């Protein structure tokens, strides 16, 4: 359980990071908090030639509200977002979901954008970004581009990020008047990977439900009524997977049960 050899570069500026990625492309891996990448290195599931540490790039720090969204820089750790005093006011869904990510001891190091970059199908932050219709800011030597979450997540642990790009920030839309939010997750133990996670956003005439842990990426659906039948039809359509934790049918059943609870709670929480 020791990583294979790699070079290590600690970038001090964004421009330096772009240079490394432009030169190394797929031979480089971006290291932020390392809470997923380091075990992948140790298990030798990842074998980059160069590790690019971005945690000392001052431009990538900070949480701020910008254009109606919470912009979270690439160096912001999950614990820092959770401790941000304005989180529950600006986006209750994140305030509810972030405590479900791993444990205190991993949230202290793991970053928000790192989890989004990894795109684990059972992870909470990709689910929230998709549910809220958020976006990521990608940048490289070629320039900068924004990309909506539904275009960004392309499959199991895969995203539309090019090898020469890094995520500069993730933007989660702030709550708007009339919206209500709820988050529900089922796992064997708190802190385990979600078997199913549901994020619900209730609006004036509709409700949006996003589910994680079921398919190869988080899936979102907007409903007008969201009665039990519509929810059951949605669960049935999901490309659910079997694994040693749960069967596909069990996951679909959880979507019906947790989805119902989350939708009803989100409606009650509308303000």
């Amino acid at each position, binding site marked *: 359980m020791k*990583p294979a050899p790699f070079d290590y570069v*600690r970038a001090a500026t964004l421009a330096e990071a772009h240079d490394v990625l432009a030169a190394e492309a797929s031979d480089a891996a971006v290291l932020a908090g390392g809470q997923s990448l380091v075990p992948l290195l140790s298990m030798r599931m990842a074998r980059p030639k160069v590790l690019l540490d971005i945690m000392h790039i001052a431009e990538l720090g900070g949480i701020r509200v910008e254009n109606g969204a919470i912009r979270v820089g690439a160096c912001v750790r999950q614990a820092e977002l959770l401790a941000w005093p304005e989180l529950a006011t600006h986006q209750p869904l994140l305030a509810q979901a972030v405590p479900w990510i791993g444990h205190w001891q991993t949230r202290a190091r793991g970053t928000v954008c790192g989890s989004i970059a990894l795109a684990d199908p059972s992870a909470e932050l990709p689910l929230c970004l998709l549910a809220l219709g958020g976006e990521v800011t990608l940048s490289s030597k070629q320039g900068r581009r924004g990309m909506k979450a539904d275009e960004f997540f392309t499959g199991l642990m895969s995203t539309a990020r090019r090898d020469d790009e890094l995520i500069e920030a993730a933007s989660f839309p702030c709550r708007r008047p009339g919206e209500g939010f709820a988050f529900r997750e089922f796992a064997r133990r708190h802190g385990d990977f979600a078997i199913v996670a549901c994020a619900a956003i209730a609006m004036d005439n509709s409700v949006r439900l996003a589910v994680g842990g079921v398919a190869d990426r988080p899936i979102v659906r907007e409903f007008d009524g969201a009665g039990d039948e519509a929810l059951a039809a949605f669960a049935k359509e999901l490309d659910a997977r079997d694994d040693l934790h749960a069967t596909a049918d069990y996951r679909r059943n959880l979507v019906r049960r947790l989805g119902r609870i989350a939708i009803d709670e989100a409606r009650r929480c509308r303000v």
Partner: protein
Amino acid sequence: MPRLSADAGHAVRLTVNGRAMEGEAEPRMLLTDFLRHKLGLTGTHVGCEHGVCGACTIQIDGAPARACLTLAVQADGAHIRTVEGLAPEPGRLSVLQEAFRRHHALQCGFCTAGILMSLDWYLRQTPEPSEAELREFLSGHICRCTGYVPIVAAALDAAKRLRETGEGK
């Protein structure tokens, strides 16, 4: 922007338990191995080596974290606290350590260093935790001996004594 090459050792300088320390590490060396093999601080234990068991938990820049999920080169310049830094002086245990002894909160002791480092931090943040909060917090640690009951009892007792003595700050 220096590039540290894979096949050479590089100086890593950090502060451990208030003392400036230095050792050599290849980029791939985990902080657990650096602490144990390069600095001789074997109180930090290596369990699963992929972030699940919590045995290697230390405090990095004031927050509990897995040493096995951190590279030594990442920790260059960091302030680190390990279990060796808990006792106020040789021959005297901290309030938390004393509570672990009183409640028999360990049997084999393999997980203990990590749990102590987590709880040391948590009880300073949360001086009056409920049992449910403590259990949720401890979900980041695996103990296969105790069944957790004496660990929770020791933590509650330590929290009470720290409140009474004001030593928790």
